[in-house]
């Protein structure tokens, strides 16, 4: 086995793990009961899945100089996905689109009551 083949195998296994995370997010979207738990499962392929895919793709394309774009993709995704998820969760909480009976501890409500 040459070095290139070993790199290819590592790349394929990383891509497989990224695809598995996407699949898990799809299953979680269908199975989980409310928006907050779906937010939890939807974040997995958006960050970790994308990092795995980018590393796998970078290993596959290694000598090419254009793989620098992959760093930009991961950087933008890491900067933007938490903001988008936070806004979606906050709007869902404030407009009552969540299931209160599924929340064990609601620290935000205590904070809101204090003011």
């Amino acid at each position: 086995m040459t070095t290139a083949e070993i790199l290819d195998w590592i790349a394929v296994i990383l891509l497989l793990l990224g695809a598995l995370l996407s699949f898990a997010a799809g299953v979680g979207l269908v199975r989980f009961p409310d928006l907050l738990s779906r937010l939890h499962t939807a974040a997995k392929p958006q960050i970790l899945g994308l990092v795995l895919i980018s590393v796998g793709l970078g290993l596959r394309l290694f000598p090419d100089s254009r793989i620098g774009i992959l760093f930009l993709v991961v950087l933008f995704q890491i900067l933007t996905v938490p903001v988008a998820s936070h806004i979606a969760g906050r709007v869902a909480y404030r407009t009552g689109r969540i299931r209160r009976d599924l929340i064990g501890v609601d620290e935000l409500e205590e904070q809101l009551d204090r003011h």
Partner: protein
Amino acid sequence: MTYLWIVIGVLLGLASLFSMARLLLGPTILDRALAVDVLLASAITGIGAYAAFHRDPTVLPILLVLALLGFVSSVSVSRFVARRQRGIDESERVEL
């Protein structure tokens, strides 16, 4: 190794199908926006897998565009929901 590529494709197809099921069922508009986000993540993964399979770096800018578009779409949907809810609250207050 060919089997692993097929498995990757099947997993991504199933993930997209499940996201589309939530897109159709989703009780609120926020659920649908989240389903679109996951669909977009599956699309990014799929395009990445395509580029890795063919060793084709020309599709990499598409990944960049998709990564930025997902943020814009989900934030605009959330802001729209928040503003509409505020409008409903104010109209109820006027009636009372």
